[in-house]
Structure formats: structure tokens, C-alpha cells
């Protein structure tokens, strides 16, 4: 028994001594392929660093980002003259990308331990799996009903809309526009040509300004876009303090009949609005709302995205073919999220394509229901705190929910 153990040891000694005798092979090129989540586009890698640590020798090889070669959406890293052996590989870096057209960014670190690099196995694959980059910006709340004064008159200056980064990457909200539908969900017409399957017809477009990366929004964080970013409670005790809003809908005008308040928050860029008076959301919720990443310049959009619709108008004892002017259109692909709003008693149709919103939500089941005041439509959240987005606001939203910013 002892003898056999000795034999084994001797053999082992012999083996090691044999190998230390042979020179350790050097692999001329080792290829590390870095895979990023498939839904990222236009990825740009920065501050990248690959560290390969030889488990045995503790020798560390570092490859600088400059040697990362873009390959499709992923990257290839070439390491030259690595000794064969077992390695721990760490790749860190910063990814900039677009996700559904929206600019985003994420730091990442991928590790892979005990990777054997040999003459026969010198390609290794690293997958960025610390984030999924699922989801994106969603409309998490629309407060369109306004509040009421202690005397019971309606107050609409405190309307707001909240958009939230529902992904696990930082996304930039620059050039995301808030869109209001040109058509009412309470008046169905056969608009000709019918472009609803490809475009959203809008009567107002207010865009978050920026140079492309001015407005980062961390995962799970929100932007409050207020009609007037001021503390409304100083004048209207039942209202909301919106002085900390991120942006405001400001209607600049020289006409003193339509003075708007230019509060503290930066103003949205008013690309287009159907009226020169003060813009506000439909306080009964007859228009659908959407957010879209504007994928072209303001000039190009204003020049080339006009939509002239005709329809047959019937009222009482006459009917007429009408043209609906004052409409711009936004391709459905640009739209990140959309919500049909309506009122059950007068609802006729949805004005967003079903691929964007197959359902609809509301505040007030009958028209001019005064109990709708102070209420919002709020997107539901799942157990993890993520907003539910099945492109069906009937499922995804809580109608008539108390406005989240009220009394806070």
C-alpha cells in the first residue's frame, strides 16, 4: 500500500518535473469577445479595461480599452502572447448606447474565473449580464384633472405628467417629447388617410431640451413635467408644490391675455402647439398622451411631418366633409409609451395604435364628473417596484388614483 503511494508520488513528481522542463507555451492571440445585451444599439465603450490574472503565476495582464475592437454591438479584445494557463478575467467599462432610440449608459464589470487558455482554447466569451436593459421610459402618472379651490372653482395650473426610467440603465431624457393627440377619444371620425397604424397625430409637442446627454435619469428615477413649476399652494391651498419639478410647459407669448408663469424649472421646447393661448391638458381627459424620442431635428419635423386629414362631420341636420388641420404626426416607432385617456360615458375610440396602447384609462366615468378632481391615472408597479408595461393601459394603470404629488 505504502509502496503504491510512493509510486504515485514519484509519478507525480516525474510529471511536474517533466513539465517544468518543457517551456510553457505562449498563445499568440487570445480573443476575448464581449457580448452586450442584444437590445442595445450604437454602443460606445469607454474606460474599458480587461484584466487577465493568471491563477498560478498571479501574473496580471491588462488590456487597455484602445485595443477593444468593435464587432457588431459587441467588442473583441485581442491579448497577445499570453502564457497558457488558468486565468481569472475581469472586464470593466462604461457603455454608452441607445435603447429604443433613447441614449443610455451603464458601467459594467464582468468576471469569469478559472478560464483555461491553451493552444486549443484561446477564444473566450464574456457576457455583460449585470443589466438587462429591458424597458425604458414610461409615463408613470398623468395628473390632468387639476385641483379645486376652497370655493369649488377648478384650478388647472397644477397639472403634471411624470415619466420614469423603468429600465436598469441610466437613460437620457433629452429630446423626449410629450405629445397630445390631435383627435379626441370621444369623437370618432373616419379620418382619411388613416395613418394610425404608422403614426400618432398630435396637436401639441413639447420636448425636453438638451445636447443629447444633458438629462440623465437613473434607473427607477422620474422626471416631473409640470404645467407650471411653482409652489401652487401659496395661492391655492388645495394645490401642489411643483417648484421642484424638472421641467415646465411654458408658453411664451407677447399677449398679456395669455400670460403664463415661467417658474424655476427649465422650460420644455415648444415645437408645436395648436393654440396660441395657454396650453393645458384636457381636464376631463379626452386626449391621449404619449412620449416619444424625437428622432429628427425640429426643422425637419416641422417641415416634413404635417398631416392633413379629412373626415365627414355630422351634426344635427347637416353633414359636411371637413379638413382637420393643425396636425403633425409622429411615427409610431418613435413613441416610447402612450396612454389613451377617455371617459366611459362619452368614449368612442382609441386614438393610439393598439401596439402602443390597446386599452384606455380615465378619471371620471361620466362626463364632467366633479369627483374626478385631485385624481390621476397612475401606472401600476410589480412586486419589484417596476412599472407594469404591457402596452395596455386598462391593465397597466390605476384609474382615478389620488394624485401622487398631492399633499406631499
Amino acid at each position: 500500500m505504502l509502496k503504491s503511494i510512493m509510486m504515485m508520488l514519484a509519478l507525480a513528481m516525474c510529471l511536474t518535473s517533466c513539465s517544468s522542463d518543457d517551456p510553457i507555451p505562449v498563445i499568440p492571440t487570445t480573443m476575448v469577445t464581449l457580448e452586450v445585451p442584444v437590445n442595445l444599439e450604437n454602443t460606445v465603450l469607454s474606460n474599458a479595461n480587461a484584466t487577465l490574472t493568471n491563477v498560478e503565476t498571479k501574473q496580471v495582464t491588462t488590456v487597455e480599452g484602445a485595443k477593444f475592437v468593435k464587432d457588431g454591438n459587441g467588442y473583441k479584445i485581442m491579448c497577445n502572447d499570453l502564457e497558457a494557463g488558468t486565468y481569472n478575467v475581469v472586464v470593466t467599462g462604461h457603455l454608452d448606447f441607445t435603447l429604443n432610440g433613447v441614449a443610455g449608459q451603464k458601467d459594467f464589470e464582468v468576471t469569469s474565473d478559472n478560464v483555461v487558455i491553451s493552444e486549443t482554447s484561446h477564444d473566450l466569451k464574456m457576457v455583460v449580464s449585470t443589466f438587462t436593459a429591458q424597458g425604458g421610459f414610461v409615463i408613470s402618472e398623468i395628473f390632468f384633472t387639476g385641483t379645486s379651490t376652497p370655493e369649488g372653482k377648478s384650478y388647472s395650473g397644477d397639472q403634471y405628467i411624470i415619466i420614469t426610467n423603468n429600465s436598469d440603465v441610466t437613460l437620457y431624457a433629452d429630446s423626449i417629447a410629450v405629445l397630445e393627440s390631435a383627435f379626441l377619444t370621444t369623437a370618432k371620425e373616419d379620418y382619411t388617410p388613416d395613418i394610425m397604424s404608422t403614426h400618432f397625430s398630435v396637436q401639441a409637442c413639447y420636448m425636453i431640451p438638451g445636447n443629447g446627454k444633458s438629462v440623465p435619469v437613473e434607473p427607477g428615477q422620474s422626471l416631473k413635467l409640470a404645467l407650471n413649476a411653482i409652489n401652487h399652494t401659496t395661492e391655492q391651498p388645495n394645490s401642489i408644490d411643483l417648484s421642484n419639478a424638472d421641467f415646465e410647459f411654458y408658453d411664451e407669448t407677447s399677449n398679456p391675455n395669455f400670460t403664463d408663469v415661467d417658474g424655476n424649472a427649465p422650460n420644455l421646447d415648444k415645437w408645436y402647439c395648436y393654440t396660441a393661448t395657454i396650453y393645458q391638458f384636457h381636464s376631463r381627459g379626452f386626449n391621449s398622451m404619449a412620449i416619444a424620442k424625437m428622432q429628427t431635428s425640429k426643422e425637419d419635423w416641422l417641415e416634413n411631418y404635417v398631416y392633413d386629414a379629412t373626415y365627414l362631420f355630422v351634426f344635427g341636420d347637416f353633414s359636411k366633409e371637413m379638413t382637420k388641420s393643425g396636425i403633425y404626426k409622429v411615427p409610431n416607432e418613435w413613441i416610447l409609451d402612450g396612454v389613451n385617456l377617455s371617459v366611459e360615458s362619452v368614449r368612442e375610440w382609441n386614438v393610439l395604435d393598439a401596439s402602443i396602447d390597446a386599452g384606455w384609462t380615465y378619471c371620471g366615468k361620466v362626463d364632467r364628473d366633479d369627483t374626478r378632481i385631485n385624481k390621476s391615472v397612475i401606472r401600476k408597479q410589480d412586486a419589484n417596484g417596476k412599472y407594469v408595461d404591457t402596452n395596455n393601459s386598462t391593465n397597466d394603470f390605476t384609474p382615478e388614483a389620488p394624485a401622487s404629488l398631492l399633499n406631499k
Partner: protein
Amino acid sequence: MQLIRYIILALLVLNIQLADAQTLINGIVLDSETMEPIIGATVADAKKGKALTVTQADGSFAIPKNNEVELRITSIGYKPLVTAITPDGRYLLQAEVSQLGEVVVTAQENRGLTTSSRIEKHAMEHLQPSSFSDLLELIPGGRSIDPSLSTPNNIHIREISTGNSNYATSSLGTSFIIDGAPISTGANMQYLAGSWDDMATSRDNTNAGVDMRGIATDDIERVEIVRGIPSVEYGDLTSGLVKIERRRGGHDMKFRLKADMGSKLFYAAKDFEWEQHRLTLNLSADYLDAKADPRNRLENYKRVTISTRLQKQWEQTDYMLTFSSNIDFSRSLDNDKEDIDQSYSAEDSYRSSYNRYALLTALQFKTKRPSWLKSADLTVSTSLENDLIERTRLVQLSRMTVAPLSKEEGENDAYILPYKYIGHHEVEGKPVNAYVKLNARLQIPNNRVSNSLLLGTDWNLDKNLGRGQVFDPMKPVYTGISSRQRSLKEIPANHRLSAYAEENVKWPTSIGSLELTAGIRATTMLNIDTEYAMKGKLYWDPRINVGYSLPRLSLFGQPAFIRIAAGIGQHTKMPTMEQLFPDMLYIDFIQLNYYHDNPDYRRINLMTYIVNPRNTALEPARNLKKEVSIDINIGGNRLAVTAFREKMTSGFRMQSYYRTYQYKQYDASGIEAASLTAQPNLSDLPYTVINELAGYGNYTNGSMTLKEGIEYTLESKRFPVILTRLTINGAYFRTTYDNSIVDSYRPSQVIDNRQIQYVGLYANDDGSVRESFNTNFTLDTDVPRLKLGFSLSAQCLWFTTSQRKEISNYPVQYIAPDGSIHEWREGDADDMYLRWLVRDYTSSQFEKNRVPFAMNVNMKVTKKLFDDRLHIAMFCNKLWAYTPDYDSRGTTIRRHVTPYFGLEMNIKL
């Protein structure tokens, strides 16, 4: 005073002229039933068959003294009378078709040359009106309409109104004359400046003429609605004339109590007559309470009228002098309040009251001697109104809002309004009207023609002594108001002076009788600045009506009379005070709009421009009427048909104009809010100078109204046995509205943070053609034995059409922000900004829209009880209706009709 002295002198001279002639026999020819003089009757020697003379305008004639002579007096429509000379000189002719004892419950076509409808007391009693508006059902083209007493009622003669205020000259140009005194609306300034709410705008009646709700009907003896060409005696009108004569004398004490679905009316009157003194006195009062909705007590209309009418006659052998004096008070009150339970506060209310005090004095002199001067009339009427609109509203703003206060041009800081306040806005108007009219009727004796010459003059003054728009500019009800307060007293009085002459001729010949009324009226505006185009200008209104009556003939064994008539006339309506002197416009531009959390640091700076929207080129509205008519009477069954064409190319309208203004746009982005210790200083801020277009409205003569149509009335005799009479009346109207002045429009879209900076100029706008054709079949039965009156009226509207005038979507020119005007070129429709100037009318909007047949059946019953002391009446309009569904471009249109009924009780003591 000097003037009056001359006039009296002239009267005396004329009166003396022909006072000799003792060698004549004087006589007067009267209708045996009505005792009205018969004009133009031929007086002939019965034996020799030689015509001696014709009767004059007062029915009188004079022939050389010859006691042997036997007279034969003939006139078309009357049975010839052969008689010896009567001692009292009265000769009564019997109508071929007796109307004696006839109760007429419909409007009747006037027998004179002027196309007009006469509505007598009986017809009104049967109709059971609440206000004058209800009477219009009776004129050709009229139809019963549910009373709508919560907003002003305007008259629309011979037209299918669109309700567009730019075509309101028709109702403005219809003159209402009560007992000889016109109701002036020329100084009505009762509008709430800056208002946008329905409560206020729906009740704005400025520049729209008389509000017929305010005219009570119970005192009215007879109404004549002149649709055609009125005598030149009546001026300051374009479209029509409503002459109302109220009751004088009698001995009754009357009460009327009426209730219908929307209103209650109470009327009481006491009539006095002292025959021996030839003195009458009538006292009456009326109260109307109407609600827009019987369930809503907060929105209502109330009317109170009180009237005192006195008349005294002095009859001498040579003349008769009549003195009349009326004192009238009427009060109209519109009330509209928000329901406290349903909404905000007790303060929200609208209240508009009109209080009118009127004094009329008329003196009539009538000679009984043969002389050139037959009669002279002097009418002096004055009225004072005390009108007040009060609008109170709890204003709660949703945004920082400003009130421009500056009354000067230039840069100024605006007042920032509190978010909550109670706004109160009053409009106080005190229109004063004075009217003097002097008339003389002359006659040049002539044995072959009956003639009379009317000469006259009138003077009218309108002034407003009210304070106008009164509000605290720091608590405005209407925050967007662009006018500032001004006292209406500052506006100069409008004086209008007219003179007229009219010749009436009736020439009976063997081949028929010729009638002619030809007159001319000249009007001028006094007391206006030389810059006005109207200054010193005379406006001439020539008007002619001619008629030819066929000699007496017989058709179907019945006596028949046929008259053909035609007329042409010009009519002129002077602009109102508001149209001549509109409020100054204050156009403000925001130069800086700075908001700070600390209210003391907020600042809104404005640049104010003042625009005077007076249009000194404004001219009166003028309407040229032409018409032909035929009147056929066969044995008492009468058909009157009139075809007319009225063209008014200079109707008043509000037209918008654009101009470029400059202001500084301050850039507040550099202000550090945290470090401010006071309002930002303008001199520290960078700015850019901006050109901006802004519009203002002014009155022009740009509205064209063309009225064409045919009116017809067929009145049958009362059929014996069934005691029923058939009246068929109706009209085909075709009304064309058009705008002859370039229209401007600035799109309201905002592109890249700025409203579109271009204004399109379009060749024309808002023209339309409307047609309607209706016939009312009215069967009225009068059973004297049962004291029962009963009528059934089938009101058929055969069709109505409306069609917009086809207009181009493309402007002809456009104004750029710098004010320069450019021609529109083809490629402009693709320009990012200019394409918004293309309007979006589609061809189907210019298609004719036709609403087919609809019929309502109305029923009315009156019953007299207790020796005629109690009179009960009820009506039900739309008791039965036939309104078939119809198809309009693939859509089925259903029409619904709700009956409307009422009940009333009249007591006569």
C-alpha cells in the same frame, strides 16, 4: 323756436288761401262700414254722365253749386251710389263685398300701395302673444316659434337670418314706431367689454335694433308691418317699418292673465272716455315673468310696462285740433345667476336692466274747409333710458395674470392680479333721445286727380349720459379686456336731420284707376367731425310706388278687382353711436414676464399701443328695394302676391385689420433668482426688438345682404254654414349674404415657440345663400252664437336650404411680421409657416344643404262667456307635427318636435 313760429305762419297763410268759394257744394265720401274716407272716387253728374270731380285724400270733394244735380259716385270696390245732394254732405258707399262684423284673426295685406301686413286686435287676442315677437308668425314667411325670452329678440323681415352679427343691419334697420314716435336704439352701448361668456354675450343687443321682448302687446289696437317700400315720411331704416297704434278711449276695465310653458303675464288696464269733452285717457300696466327653463328660477326675464295715454280733441267748424300725450315706462330685466348648490359662490351673477321713460306729445291740426293745407302734425318725443348691466364673478386664476392699467402709450409695468378676487363690472348707459317731426299735408284741388302732397322734416338726437364700462381695473371680471374705461358722456351727440316731400296721386279713369306715391327724403348727420366722410353729406332716398287697378269686372259671377303695383325705393340707415365712436383699443405686448417665488420681485413689463378703431370712412347702410305685386279680389276672396328684391351692399360689419408693432423682448434667463433683492431692473437686461402683428376690429360697410322672394296671401271669405275662413299665406325667401371686403386671418398655431407670424388676406369670406319656402294654411271658425273662435293652422315648411359661398382656401396676399405685404405664390403652400395660411374648407362645405318638408299643426281656441265679460283662450302649438327623417350624405337625420301650449283669461268689467 324761430322755426316753429315760421311754420305756424306758413300754416295760416296756406289755410287762408282758398277760404273763399261760397259757390261750391262740399261733400265727403265715406266707406259705409268703416267710415273711412274713400280717396279718388269719381263724382259724376248722373244724368249727363259727365264726371265732375274726384274725391281728395280726405274723401272730400267740391263741385259748383247746382241743387238740381243728381250725383253718381263710383269707386272701384264699391257699389255705385246715385243720390241727390245730401244736406250734411256725407255720401256713404257700400263695399261690393261686405266685411261687416267680420272677425279677422290673421294678418291682412294692406290695401294701400305699400306692401304691408295689418294685424288687428282680434288677431292678437286669438294669437295670445307674450311679446311683440310672437306676432311675426302672422306675416308671410312667418311661422310659430316657441318664445325665447331669455335673450333679445330681433326682427328679421323678408330674410332667413343667420344670427351672424355682421349681418344685423337688417334688424338694426327696421324701425319701430309707437303712436308716431320711433324707438331709438342709436345710443345703445350696453355690452360688457371683454366678455367671452355666454351669459353676457348672448344678451348683447348693441347694433341689432329693437329688442321685441320689451314691447307689450295688450295695449295695441293695430300693427302695420311694412315689408315693402314705406312712405318717405319714415326714415333711418333699411329693411322695414313697424307701426304700432295703441288703443285710445273706451270704458273698460280689463285684466289679462296668461301662462304658458315659459312665462306668466299679467295685464291690467282702465280706459276712460268722456265723449262730450272729446277726451280719452288710457291707463295700463303689464308684468311678464319668463324663465328660460321653468325648473330654473335663477335665469329669468322680467318686463314691466306702464302706460298713460291722453288725447283731447277740439272740433271747430273750420278745423279740428287733436292733442295726444303718452307717458310710458318700461323695464326689462335679464337675470342670470349661478346655482349656489351646484357651484361656487353666491356672487356669480349677471343682471341687465333697461328702464325707459318716454314722453310723447303730438299735435294734429286738420282743416275742414277747402284749402290747400289739409292737415299738419307736430310730434315731439323724448325718451330717457337708465340701463345697467351688472356682472359679478368670483375670479380664481390658474396662472399669474396681469391687468394692464396704463392709459398712455409706451412702456409700463402691468399690475399682477391676485389669484382670487371678486370682480364686478358694470355698464351704465343713459341713452337720451329727442325726436321732433313736423308734417304738413297739402292738396291742390283738381277735378281729375285726387292728390295730396306731404311735406315734412324731422330731427333726431341720440346722446348717452351714462358712465359706460365701470370696473375696478385691478379686479376685472374679464381679465383679457383690451379697452379702458371711458365715460359715454364724452361721445358727441348724434344729430340727424331729414326733410321729405311726397306726392300721392289717384287718377280714376274709364280704363282703370292709377295710383302713384312718389317721394324723396334727404338725411344728413350733424355734429360729426370733418374727418368723417359723412360730414356735410346729404343722403337721398327716392321712393316710388305705382299701382294700376283694372276697371270693375266680373269673374265667376262675382265682382272682381285686380290691381297691379310696382315700387322702387332707396332706404338709408345711419350708423349707431357705437359704430361711429367705438372704444379706443389698447394693444399691450409683454416685454418681460418674470416670475419669482417672492411676489414682490415678480415683474411683467408691457409696451402699450393705443389704436383708435374709428372708421371715418363709414357711411350709412343703404338698401334698394324693388317689388311688383298683384292683388286680386274675387267676390271677397283675395289673393295678394308680391315679388321683391332688396339689395343692401353697405351693411355694417366688424372687420379685422392687422398692423406691425414693435416691442422689446427682454431676456430674463440671466437673472439669478436667489440674489435678487428687488424687482429685476430692466436696464440690466439684454433685449431684442421684435416685430409683431396685432389685429384690431373696426366697422365698415362691407356686408352685403340680398333679399329676394315672393310673398303671398290668399284670404277666403268666411264660408257660410261652416262659418270658416281659409287663409293661406307664406313666402319663398332667398337671402344672400356676402362680404365685399378683404378678410384677414392669423393662424393661432405655435411653431417653434412662436405663434405663426403671418396674416393671410383673403378675397372674401363667410358668404352664404339661404332659401326657405313655407305655407301656412289657417282655418279659422267663428261661431258668434256660441261666442266661440277656433283656429287650426297647418304650418308647412316645404324646404329650407343653406349653402356657403365657395371661397378660396388660398390667400391672395399675406402680411409678413415686418408689416410688408406679399403676393401669394404657388409654392408658398409648402412653406413651413405660410402653409398654415391655407384655410381648410373642403368642397363639400360649399354644397347645398337641404332640409326637407316639415309641418306643425297649431290649434287655438277662444271662448267668450258672461256677456263677453270673460274671455278664455288657449293655444297649443305643434300639437301635431310631421317631420320625416331624411338622409344627409349617408346619415339619417331625425327631427323631434315638442308641443308648446298656454292658457289665458281675459276679464272685462
